[in-house]
């Protein structure tokens, strides 16, 4: 086993960190205060990200990306994760890997423009009535001659307001299942402006200011057969083949944010004085720091080990679920304790802690809730035993 970084990995971490600190941190206050990520700001930062080769770095070199392996990509995600999510997600975009599943024509139309920074994608699965239980989705795609006709509603769809198109998952039929019939799902590319497709603003939410969510309405939205991504009725298979590592991506961003919160906590504990001494001298504070450091270490090892396994093709769903669960719950703990160590100052928006604490909340919900991760882990343990 080798836990060291290669020269390239170290340099990629350094470049990404420098970019985050110099180009993203200075704009955080504006986005946090206004809740809006200005388009001009996006274009300005995006141009710099493209020049630094950080944009779409998750993509293979052959399609214009940086060709990072999963482990290196996660190191990069960790650094980006330090900053306001809207800023890094939009200005240093990582188009969904699922775009790689497209036909050559679909690649021309969707993938390459996303890699070049000319278009944004979004991914629509969740519905008001179907969250964790995605197969329970009600939105449908029905064949009509050579066309498909889409109906239904998706919600919580991240940055669909700025996206140029949505990769949308729809129930397209049924097959017999062991207990009850199972829905068959098909994935489609739907362009903004397609008749019958509307995007409405979603909800305000506590985490990640400036990072929007939207409601997608499909009302007899007619699409040609070429709009299907992957095979008809095999939408989940396409998703499972390509989206596997996004759980690790979520976890990796949590590592970076936890480090940032921890650095503040450590600094405060070693400078703030009460009762005539540095508060870090009180065991009530110093042991918190020790526990935080242990949690961070554990989460980091789990995320990077899973990424390493992913590159070798040996990562299991349970392994990735464990890493996501640990990293997101670790961040909640570290953010909370970092505020506790600061006392009242931790709640003030002078420091990034109140924000990191708010932002931590969504991580245990999206990309599979903590309960769903535990479900995946426990099923992997018990299923082989017939329980």
């Amino acid at each position, binding site marked *: 086993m080798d836990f060291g970084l290669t020269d*390239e990995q170290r340099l990629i971490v350094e470049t990404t960190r420098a970019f985050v600190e110099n180009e993203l941190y200075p704009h955080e206050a504006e986005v946090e205060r206004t809740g809006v990520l200005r388009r001009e700001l996006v274009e300005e930062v995006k141009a710099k990200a493209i020049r630094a080769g950080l944009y779409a770095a998750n993509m293979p070199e052959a399609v214009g990306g940086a060709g990072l392996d999963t482990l290196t990509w996660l190191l990069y995600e960790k650094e980006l994760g330090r900053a306001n999510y809207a800023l890094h997600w939009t200005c240093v975009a990582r188009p969904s890997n699922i775009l790689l599943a497209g036909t050559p024509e679909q690649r021309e139309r969707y993938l390459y423009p996303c890699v070049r920074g000319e278009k944004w994608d979004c991914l629509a699965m969740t519905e008001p009535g179907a969250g964790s239980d995605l197969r329970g989705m009600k939105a449908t795609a029905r064949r009509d001659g050579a066309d498909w006709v889409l109906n239904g509603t998706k919600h919580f769809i991240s940055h669909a307001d700025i996206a140029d198109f949505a990769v949308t998952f729809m129930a397209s039929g049924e097959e017999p299942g062991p207990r009850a019939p199972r829905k068959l799902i098909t994935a489609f590319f739907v362009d903004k402006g397609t008749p019958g497709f509307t995007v409405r603003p979603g909800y305000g939410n506590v985490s990640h200011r400036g990072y929007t969510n939207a409601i997608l309405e499909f009302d007899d939205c007619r699409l040609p057969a070429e709009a299907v991504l992957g095979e008809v009725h095999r939408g989940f298979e396409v998703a499972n083949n390509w989206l596997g590592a996004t759980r690790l991506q979520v976890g990796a961003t949590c590592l970076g944010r936890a480090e940032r919160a921890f650095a503040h906590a450590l600094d405060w504990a070693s400078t703030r004085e009460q009762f005539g001494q540095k508060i870090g001298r009180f065991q009530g504070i110093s042991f918190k720091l020790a526990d935080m450091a242990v949690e961070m270490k554990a989460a980091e090892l789990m995320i990077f080990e899973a990424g390493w396994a992913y590159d070798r093709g040996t990562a299991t769903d349970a392994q990735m679920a464990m890493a996501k669960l640990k990293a997101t719950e670790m961040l909640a703990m570290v953010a909370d304790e970092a505020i506790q160590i600061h006392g009242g100052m931790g709640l003030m928006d002078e420091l990034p802690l109140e924000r990191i604490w708010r932002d931590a909340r969504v991580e245990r919900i999206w990309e599979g809730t903590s309960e769903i991760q535990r479900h995946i882990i426990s099923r992997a343990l018990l299923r082989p035993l017939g329980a």
Partner: protein
Amino acid sequence: MKVLVPVKRVVDYNVKIRVKSDQSGVETANVKMSMNPFDEIANEQAIRLKEKGTATEIVAVSLGEQKCQETLRTALAMGADRAIHVVTDAELQPLAVAKCLKAIAVREEPGLILLGKQAIDDDSNQTGQMLAALLGWAQATFVSKLEIADGKATCGREVDEGIETIEVTLPAIITVDLRLNEPRYASLPNIMKAKKKQIDSLTPEELGVDVAPRLVYTHFEEPPKRQAGVRVESVDELVGKLKSEAGVI
């Protein structure tokens, strides 16, 4: 024209410096190290010269322990073409560095040597000047503006009175100041490409240089702690304090 760019591995500028408990030096164990920021500016300038077609090859040089290779990799990832590492665990002082660089310059025959004006660790501000003397080349220090044409470099130097413009004939030594340029990020594709670039290793002995220190550092200590400030109520009070307590007006 070949450009030589010496780059030094130093404690990162963001790190809070701590003196070792035995006062023998500054703590560098488990401390983030980076390329000296002024050397980054020198490297950036060399890359810009190459992009303009003025320079044809950029050779980065670093002296010191094995880990200096990391600094060289950074220089390569930014855009240097190849690198030379003079490997030694000895304590290196400016004269020794200048002698090694001279030996390399004699081998490589660059048309220009671009250095940082000083390193942010020891702030000696000597290497460039010593190197110019040893080679007998022209020198321009503290350069914040640089034009190269017809075998001459026109250099704007930051001096107390403002910008002094001088012209030096190449080959020359130029040491660069903060405002010359803003170094680029080593881009991800270039980081990957840098992997294939060559780093040659040499020793001071192979260069025929005795690097033994000529100066002895007796001890290091922390600068005195700054006293807490006071808040004044009015301009009059401020002026009063400046007169009576600070004695500056």
